Each structure stands twice: as structure tokens, then as C-alpha cells.
């Protein structure tokens, strides 16, 4: 699963790049989201063991040896939820900022500095 | 004889001054016109207000005293010392002042006779008034005279101090110095040369030793009279009656 790991890392870097290069707040949040997704992908990839199946206990799975490590998968579930919450929160902020100043340029919000 | 001077009144010149002043519409009785000598309110550091009367607060108002001579022999000795040590305060606003300088230079060298110049009236006991005195300078002369410590002597140089000389009818010079100060020695001339000055000093010495120079006491005794004369001619009188 090296490929997904690399993909995850690429997504993380891409997301970071987006956060750093885009001036629009929404796009920054999208960047964050991409990064988050990359992390999730990374977690899953690390937890994956070759030739094994998902850690869902059903008839196809007889023993623990057949499934991948279940912990990362569980973690990802939580992480996704949290990521969602964070993203939602960020978007809420974006809405509020737009309401107050009518702008979504991040460089417009420099009231606080130094 | 001296008294007569003070009782004689009004010479021509003073009438002329009157006339001029009346023409100019000036008041004649404007004593103490200087602002700094008017009474004023002052605020102290704690905010309290009080009145300052400069004439009373800054100046001693005491009248001069008569210093009677001591016993005969002692006084004779003292007068000898006084006569042999003449410390001069030179007052030279008139033309005659120029003759005072050569007095101290090698040619005439008055130091020989115990005569020296002093820079301050306090330490001098001979007042040399050289030449004419205008009304303005008279005020300074009076003040300096009063600030000298007694016994003190006045030597007047030149005709101007005797009768006004060539300024006899000038509107702003005085004619006779001894209306205003007790003069001990007049040295006549216009101007008297240093030789005459030396002779005058010798005369003064003699008089001092004989105890005849009591100008300080004379001034104190006839103080009111002198003041009246002084105030008559000096119109902007901005000093206390006696300058200690």
C-alpha cells in the first residue's frame, strides 16, 4: 500500500499548499479539508496489511489473522467526525467573517497584529 | 551760612523746568511710578495670598543717625588715620572725570598720599564728583553717597558743581551740589588739573585731621531739608528716602 501512503502524503502536502497559497478563506478551508483527507488516507494505509480484508466480523472472516489492524480504521472514523466538525466550524467562521466585513480575502483580516 | 542754602528757594532753572512740565501736561507729583515698586498681591507656595510692599519689604526705612565723635584724643588719632587713608569712590559722568585717571599714574601718583580707588561705595570714604550733574545722575549720586559708610567726605570737582558753570541755565543739570549733599571741598576749575586735585586732597586731609569734616552728621541732622531739595528736583523719585 505504498502507493496510498504516497498519495496520502501528496494530499497532505497539496492541502497545505492550498492553505498557504490561496487567499480566499473558503479555498483555505478546502485546503484544510484535503489535508485532512490525506491524513485519513495515510492512517488507513498504515493500518492496512497486505492481502487481508476489512475488520468487519462476518462469515468471511474466521480469525483475527485475516483482517487488517482494526485500530486505525476505528481511529479514522473518529478522525473523520472530528475533521468534519472542525471544517464545519471553519466554515461557520467564514460565514461570520463575510457577514461582518463582506470579504473572504484572508489578508483583509489584519486588525490584530504585532 | 549753610542753613541759608536750604531755605533759599526757587532758582530760575527750576521755574523753567516747571513750565516745561506743565506744557507737556506731566503731573509733577508722580512719585514711585515704577511698576516694580507698587504694592502687589503675591501668591505664596501654599496658595495663600498676601501683599508685598516693595518699599517696605525690600528696603530699610531707617533714617541716618548722627554719630557723635568719641573722646578728643582718640578722635584725633582716628581722624589722623582717616585723613591718611582716603579711599575714593570716583563719580565721573561729566567731562572732569578724565582728569582723575592721571592722578593715579606715575606722573602724579596720588598713592603716595594714602589715596586709593575702591571699586565699591561701601568701602570708600571719599566721594569724588567730577563735573556737572544732570538731574538723572544726581539721583545716582545721592544713592551712592548714602551707601557709603561714615565718616564720609565729598569732593566736588569743577565749576559745574559750584554754580552750574557753563550749564548754568540748562534745564536738566543742577547748579549747586551742596543743595543736595554736604560738600567738604570744592576744587575749582574747568577742569581742574591733577595738581589742583592733589592740592584739594591735601586740603581735605587737613580738614579731616582738624575734625572739620562732619558731612555725614550734617547730612543726618539736616536730613529732611536735603531730602526736600532732592525731591524737588528729582521728579521720578523711585527709591527709599535713605539708601542704606
Amino acid at each position, binding site marked *: 500500500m505504498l502507493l496510498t501512503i504516497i498519495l496520502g502524503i501528496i494530499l*497532505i502536502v497539496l492541502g*497545505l499548499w492550498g*492553505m*498557504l497559497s490561496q*487567499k480566499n478563506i473558503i479555498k*483555505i478551508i478546502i485546503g*484544510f479539508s484535503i*489535508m*485532512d483527507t490525506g*491524513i485519513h488516507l495515510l*492512517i488507513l494505509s*498504515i493500518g492496512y496489511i497486505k492481502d487481508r480484508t476489512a475488520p468487519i466480523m462476518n462469515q468471511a472472516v474466521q480469525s483475527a489473522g485475516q483482517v487488517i489492524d482494526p*485500530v*486505525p480504521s476505528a*481511529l479514522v472514523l473518529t*478522525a473523520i467526525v*472530528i475533521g468534519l*466538525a*472542525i471544517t464545519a*466550524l*471553519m466554515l*461557520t*467562521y*467564514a460565514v*461570520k*467573517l463575510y457577514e*461582518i*466585513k463582506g470579504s473572504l480575502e*484572508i*489578508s483583509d*483580516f489584519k*486588525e*490584530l*497584529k*504585532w | 551760612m549753610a542753613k541759608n542754602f536750604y531755605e533759599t528757594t526757587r532758582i530760575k532753572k527750576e521755574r523753567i523746568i516747571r513750565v516745561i512740565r506743565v506744557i507737556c501736561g506731566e503731573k509733577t507729583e508722580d512719585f514711585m511710578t515704577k511698576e*516694580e515698586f507698587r504694592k502687589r498681591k*503675591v*501668591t*505664596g*507656595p*501654599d496658595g*495663600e495670598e*498676601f501683599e*508685598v510692599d516693595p518699599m517696605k*519689604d*525690600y*528696603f*530699610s526705612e531707617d533714617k541716618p543717625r548722627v554719630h557723635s565723635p568719641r573722646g578728643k584724643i582718640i578722635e584725633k588719632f582716628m581722624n589722623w588715620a582717616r585723613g591718611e587713608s582716603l579711599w575714593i569712590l570716583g*563719580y565721573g559722568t561729566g567731562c572732569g572725570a578724565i582728569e582723575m585717571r592721571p592722578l593715579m599714574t606715575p606722573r602724579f601718583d596720588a598713592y603716595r598720599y594714602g589715596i586709593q580707588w575702591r571699586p*565699591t*561705595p*561701601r568701602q570708600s570714604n571719599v566721594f569724588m564728583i567730577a563735573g556737572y550733574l544732570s538731574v538723572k545722575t544726581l539721583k*545716582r*549720586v545721592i*544713592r*551712592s553717597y548714602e*551707601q557709603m559708610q561714615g565718616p564720609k567726605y565729598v569732593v566736588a570737582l569743577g565749576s559745574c558743581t559750584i554754580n552750574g558753570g557753563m550749564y548754568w541755565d540748562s534745564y536738566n543739570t543742577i547748579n549747586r551740589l551742596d543743595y543736595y549733599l554736604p560738600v567738604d571741598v570744592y576744587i575749582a576749575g574747568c577742569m581742574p588739573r591733577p595738581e589742583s586735585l592733589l592740592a584739594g586732597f591735601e586740603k581735605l586731609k587737613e580738614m579731616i585731621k582738624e575734625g572739620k569734616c562732619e558731612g555725614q552728621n550734617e547730612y543726618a541732622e539736616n536730613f529732611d531739608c536735603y531730602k526736600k531739595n532732592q525731591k524737588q528736583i528729582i521728579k521720578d523719585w*523711585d527709591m527709599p528716602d535713605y*539708601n*542704606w
Partner: protein
Amino acid sequence: MVSPIYIFIIALGIGFLLSLFDKAGRAVAMTIFYGALLAMAFISGQWLLHLLQGAEAEIITTAGFQPPFSINLKMGLLEAFFTFLINTLGFLAGIYLLPKFKSQKIYGMILFLMLIMGLNGLVMTGDMFNLFVFLEITSIATVSIIAIEKNLKSISAGFKYVIAGGIASAFYLIATIFLYRFTGVLNIAMMAETLNVASSQAVFLSVFILMIAVIVELKPFPANGWALDAYEAVDSGVVAVIASGTSAAMLFVFYKISPLLNNTLLLTAAGIGLATFTFSNLLALKQKNAKRLLGYSSIGQIGLIITAYALLVRAGYARNSEIVMLTTGGLFINHFLAKAGLFWLSGVVEKEKLEEWSTLRNNPILLFAFAVFVIALVGLPPFPGFFAKWQLVMTFANQGLFFWIGLILLGSFLEAIYLFRWLGKVLKSDLKAELKAKISQIFPILIYLLAILIGGGYLSRLINQGTSLSILYLPVLFIVFLFFIDFLPVAIKNTLVILVGSYYTYLIIPQLSGYRVMLGVIFLAGGVLLFIPGYFKRGKRTGFYPLAVMMYVGLAGLLISENTLQFFTSWELMTLGSYFLIIRGKKSEPHALSYMLFSIGGAFVMLFGFGILYYVNGNSMALSSLGNIESMAGIIYALLGIAFLTKMASIGLHIWLPGAYGEAEADVSPMLSAILSKAGMFGLLMLMAAIQTANLGSINLPYVLGWLGAITVFIGNLLAIYQEDAKRLLAYSSVGNLGYILFGLALMSHMGWLTSITYALNHFLFKALLFLAIGGVVYRVKTKNMYEMGGLIKKMPLSFVSVLIGIIALSGVPPLSGFAGKWLTYNAVLEKGWYLQGVIVIIGGLIAFLYCFRLIYAVFLGQLKDKHRQVKEAPVWFLIPQVILIGAIMLFSTYPAFILGPVGKMLNDILPENALIWENLDAYSIYGHWNGFLIMMITGGIFVIVFLWLYFLNRKAQKVKQFNIVYAAERPSRPELTHVGYNFFAHYKKALGSLSQPYVTKFWNTMADIFHSSAGFIRRIYTGDGQTYILHIIIFIVVVYFLTIGG
């Protein structure tokens, strides 16, 4: 015993149900809300008590599994402590926010509960991923609370906060998963057991990322712009929780993951912490916004704690060893309480600008709280930060970490600069607005005030194991008592202080020995004497007595201290007390600040010196070990020397003195000049006594000090003659006189020390006399400019006599006592062979005539001014001590043997050669001789005869008034124009122009400028743009990584 899990249950349960309760009315909801907060605090408090008594830690696991298969929550002693702190903070912050909660929607309360719960979770969880979850809960709760506030600043700060927090937690998550990959567990403790950081590059990188993610949450420099913005913009009640509570939890997280870190990473963490500490404090110098300033300070403090912890652990101390707990714990508690208190105060004040905080003066209790918090943050006694910092420095020194100590002290010094500047502004700038403080706001502040006071006392006991500060405890109790009776009028307090002071003097003096007796008399008996003028004040004189007594307690403490800690504590107490005395003057704010900065700078240098001493002398804190230092003696002595020289105001370090002495109140200046300045002398005496016995190697410290003393005499006296302000003149004169004392001490001979002590005693007598007399005059005429006075001899004849005696004693003209000093100087100089220095000293002494004359002439002689025509003699309370002092001077002048004889004997312990032989009243040295009694009698005899002669000749002198002077046949018009007072020695200045330039002031101003302008330059990295902040974080991580692997 209530299980700690109930903390979460209560928080979650109540949190979700709160909106339901709200339907029944806000009162119900709020009652339940506060009940919940209280219950949480109670549970953790109960556990804390329980665990303190030695109970086992409770570990809660989920679903009955054991780790690694379950998430575990631990309630150990530390966890209990931290949760207790957080929950009480939560409760108090809740009370503080009560008006807000009342009026806003119910979400505020719910989020607040979530926040507190999240913090509890952060502390208690032992699972790495669970920690991530709590991190996010905290983060979301915090940011959501911020969002409730509907102003632009708050919202934009919140956005930056959430983005930065998101990135940090993303990194945390990445690191977590990799670490899980390497160890197969998520339990932190188990992970620490199995993980070998050095095993591979990847593991190292993962641990690094984990650490850096936690550190980013702790707001390291420079990746902390987002946090600063939040501190500045967010509501005070909330930000107190963020600054204290969140920081506490995150510090605990750092504590928890620290077993994973190896030495390299610990060093990195320490480095980051130190950089954060130093730079935050540097940048704060330019800060004018109060909350942002507090933000900088918070970040700096956290940095310091990280440094302290990481370095100590790296040095091999167990994570929970006593030393680590004392130092980091002390620093942490100090920061926690003070910062929360200050942020709460910011909500009460509701002003942004630092100087506008002066509204606090409307409420003395809040003002007191503010002062306490600020002083605690700076790290002065008796607060926890002081003892923790002391312990930290000692421990670091023990490990030889001098570089770190140096930087920590530098950072602390920078912190002191802006905090004391702020304190000064609050105490002195104009009162413009009213203060509306609600009881709900004051209550939490007072609780923390109390806590910090108790904490200081508690910690002082912990650190002082074995050594006793008990002789200081009673006086300290007296100080506290004075605080309580501060509402009484001056007369009662003054009497009380004089009585207790006399008794204390009576107690202490017999316990002293050697030269300490002399100084004891000056410090204590002199101190009591100088309280007498205090009666002239009307009203209450709020705050004067406790702080004045604090200064004297410090001074007394110096005399009786046996170890470095006692000495240092006393020193700082004295400094603190005197600072508050100085700042009482009308215009003394900048001068008090510069006094404090020099003092604190000096104290830190001293601390450094003591640290090295501790290291060199095998962990001995005994002061007596100063005399037998095995190595590095030169450095230690130099450091201690510099510290004492700041108090002695030697040239270069003197610029604080003129303003401080000059602007202080009338009865404070004599205390400062006559008594306080001798503290430096005492230190130097002690130091020199040690140097006497120590082997210094190639460094000739006394020689350097000798030159320094000589130059100080010269320059101090030279500058005194140019002063227009009478008190400043005296202040510069003090500089000069302290120079003599220094010079005498540096001579390192019996004669030299005798000179020095003679000078000290004399200086005490005449400077107290002069400052009292001039103080009385200034009190009456309401100006200090000498050219505005004049002719006061007629109005204040007694003060004139005092000044006359004072200046004769000062200038050293026989027959008064000053001559003793001069005579001894000549002998000591000849004996030692320091001719050139001696010449400079003596010339400096001659210059004293210039200012002596100016002082008495311009004030008392010359022309009386109109507005002083009705001035009265100085208050009788000023005159009483003056009479006593004149009596003492006369006694000392007539019978010097009675004082110098015993002093010589005192010195015999240290310098055995007895240089001065007394035959009755005759003093003999190997060079010359002198008999004070005879000189006095002969001079007096001649004087009387000449006077009678003059009086006989001149008894009828005419008394005249001020304008009866010969004035070139004119007369003066106004006294002002006739009084020659201004720029009296213009020709001296013209002749010696370059020598009287203020080079030293320029130097220090340039230093200050460099610091300020570099702060102004560096802080521009905080552009306010959220994106830049993200960039900072990324760059920070990359740079630190390369520094870590590179270094």
C-alpha cells in the same frame, strides 16, 4: 470516593441537558451549571486530598479492558492536582462570566462545560488517540465560545486560532499513527517503554512531529501569532481559561509525552522554550495593548516552564522528582494564578492601553491584586515564582548550565522591564475614568490573590529545607498586619512603626558581630530615626508603612542572613519595598522604573553569581562559603560585585539614582540616601571580606573597584555641581560619596576599610540631615529648583543651620566629622600606594565644595523671593531628627575616638593590622596624627575670640534689607533678577565640557533603543494575516527539525 469518571459524566450529561433545563428558566440552568462546575472541582479536590494522604492512583479503563486494548484515564496525584486547578479555574471563570452567561444564549454555558471537560480529559487520558480527541474537543469548544462574541476582532482571531489548531492537531494525528505503526500501542506509557527513538530516522521523525505538534499548541516563538491575536481579542473571562487552563492542560500533555523524547529532542524543546521566553519578552517591550502584553507574557512563561522541565529531565532528574516539581511546578503555579488574575483584571478594567489601567486606583484591593500579580510574574519574593526561579537557577547551576541561566535571566529581565513599566504607569498616570467592578468579577480575582500569597509562603517553606527564615517571619507578619491597619491615620501607624522598630532594633543589634553592628545601627536605629518626620503627613498615607517596613525588614534580613537564599530574599524584599517608596513621589515614575530595572538587573546578576557559587562549592548555600571558593572565584566575585555596585550606584550604573532620590517624597529621600545605599556597601563589605581570604588568581578585582570608586567620586561630584534641583544635587553627591566608600573598601587594608566605614557613617549622618533639611524647605516652598529659592535663611534659620552643619561635614572641612574621612583617605592612599586614584578621589572631594556652597547659597542666601515672604520654618517633625543628627555629628566630630576606636576593633577580625592607634583622643597612623577634640576646641576658641572682637567694634551695625546693596548706583528691581542661582558654575562646565557630558545616560539609552527597536522590528513577523501564521508554523517545524538533526 467519587470516581473521577464522574467529572466527564457530569460535564457531558449536564452539558447536553442544559438546554432542556433552560426551558425551565435561566436561573435553573445556571444553578445546575454552577453546581456541575462545583461538583467537578469537588471531585478532583477530593481526589487531591485523598492522594496527598498517600492513596493509590485510580486508573479507569473503558469497557473493562486493560490497556493497550482500552483507553485509560488516570487519576494520580499530579492529575488530581491539575484537574483540581483546572476545575477550580473553571468554576471561578464561570462566576466571572456570570453576567455574560445570564444574558447570552445557553450555548455559552454548554461550550464552557465542554471546554472544562476537554481540559480534564487532556490531563487524565493516557491514550494517545484519546488525547487527540480531547484536544479537538477543547479546541472546538474554545473556538466556538470565541465565536459567540460577535465583533470582528474576536471572530478573526478565532479563525486564526482554529486554523492553527487544526494544523497542529493534524500533525499530532500523523505522528500518532506512525507511532502506533512502530509500537503497536496507543497507550502513552506503554509506547514509551517499547519505543526506541534512535532506532530509525522514521521513528525519530514521528516522535519529533508529535513533540512539535504539542509544542505548537503551547505557542512557541515564532509560530504563535494566532495565539497572540486570540489573547488580545477574546473576552477576558474566556482568555483567562485559555491562558491558564489550556496552557496547564497542554503542559501536562507535554509532561505525559516527555518519556518518548530522547535527549536530543528534550534539548530541542528546551531551546524552543528558551527562544520563546526570550523573544516573547523582548517583543513585549514594544507592546502598548494590555491584553496582548499579557499574551506575550503568557507565552514567555510557558516557554520558560518548557525549558526548565526539558532541561531538568534531560539532566537526569526523574520526571516527577521533587526538584522538577518545585521548579516547574512553582513557575507553573505562579503563572497560572497570576495570569488568570491579570486577564480577569483586564475584563474589569476594560481598557486597552497600559496607562489606562490606572483606573484600578479607584479600587485599592484590585490595585493591590494587580501589583501582587505583576510582582509575582517578575519573580520577586514572597511569591512562588521567586522561589521556583531560585531553585531553577541553583539546579541549573548544579548541572553547569550557565548559558541557559544567562538567557533565562535575560528574558526575566526583559519581562521585568515591561511589567514594572506597566505597574508604574498604573500607579502614577492620570486617573481618567471610573472603575465599575462587579462582585462576580472581583471574587475570582481575590481568590487567586489569596492563593498566590499562600502559594508563596508554602513554597518558601519547601525550598528552605533546613534553613530558617524565621527571624524574617515575624517582621513579615508585622508587614501583613500593617496592610490590615492601613485605614488608620498616619500618627497611629507611625508611632506603632517607631515603637516596633525600636524594639526590633533592640532585639537584632546584640545578635550582630563585627562590622555588621555598625551597619545594623545605620539600618535600624537610623531607620527608626527617619520615621519621625513621617508625622508631618496628614491623612492615611495609604500603603506607605507596610512597604517602608518591608524595606527595613529586607535590610535587617541582609545583616542576619546566613545563606545565599536568605540574603537574596532579603535583598529582593528591600528592593521591592524601596521601589514602592520611590514611586510615591509625584514625578518619580520613570525614575522608580529605572531604579527597579537596575536593581533587578543587579539582583539577577547576583543570582547568577550565587548559582555559580552553588555549583563550585558543592551545593552549599552558606554565605560563609564565599570566602573559600575553589574555582571560578573571579567570575563569582565580579558578578556579585556588579550586583552590589548597582545599589551603590557606581559610575556607569548610577543613572537611576539622581531621579530616584530626587523625586522621592521629602522623608523618603533621606531613607534612601542615608540608609538604603548602605545595603550595597554591606554587600561589598561581605564580598571584600571574602576576597580577603580567597585566592583570586590573576584577576585583581579590588584594583578595578578602586579605579571605579575613584572615578565615581570624581564624576558624581562633578555632575552634582551642575544640578539645578536641590534634591538631585544631593543625589549626585550621594553617588560621589558612595564612590568614596567603594574606594575605601577596594583598598583592602585596615585603614582603607576604616576610611570606608567612617565615610559611611558620616554620609548617613550628614546626608540624612541635608535631605531632611532640604526636604523641609521643598515642602514649604513647593519647588526643588534652587534658583527659584533664595534668602530663606531669614525664614528658616534652623534649616539653614542644619544645612550649614551638613555641608561642612560633607566637604570635610575641620573641625567637623567629615575631616576624619579625608584624613583617613590620605593615610590609606599613602599606605596602599594608589597615588593616582588617590589624587582623583581627593580632587573629587574638593569639587564637593562647589555644590556645597551652591546648595546653601542658592537656597538660603541671596535674595528672598516675593512669594516666599510668608514661608514658615520647616515642620517640627523634620527638625527633631535634624537636631538629633546635628548632635550626633558634633559628638562624632569632637570624640571620633569613641566611634572609630571600636570600629577599628571590629575590623581586626578580618584585617588584623591595626592601622590607627588611639592615645586618648589622639589618632596616630604611621604617617600622621590628628586630634578631633583639640581641633574642635581650638577652632571654637579662635572663633569666639574673633567674634567678640568684631562684636566689640561693631555692635551697633545697622540692619538693612535685601535690596540695600550697592548696585552700581542703581537699585535692583526684582529679587529674581538679582539672585544669581541658575547655571551657577557655567564656567566650570565650559572649562570641562567633555567631562560633564552624559555619556552613561546615552549608553543606557542606546541600549534601551537597541532592545526596543529590535523588538519593534522582529514583531513585524506577526502580520495579522492568518495565512502567514500557517506559514510560520510550517517553517517553524521545518527549521526546528533541521536544527535538531543538524545540532
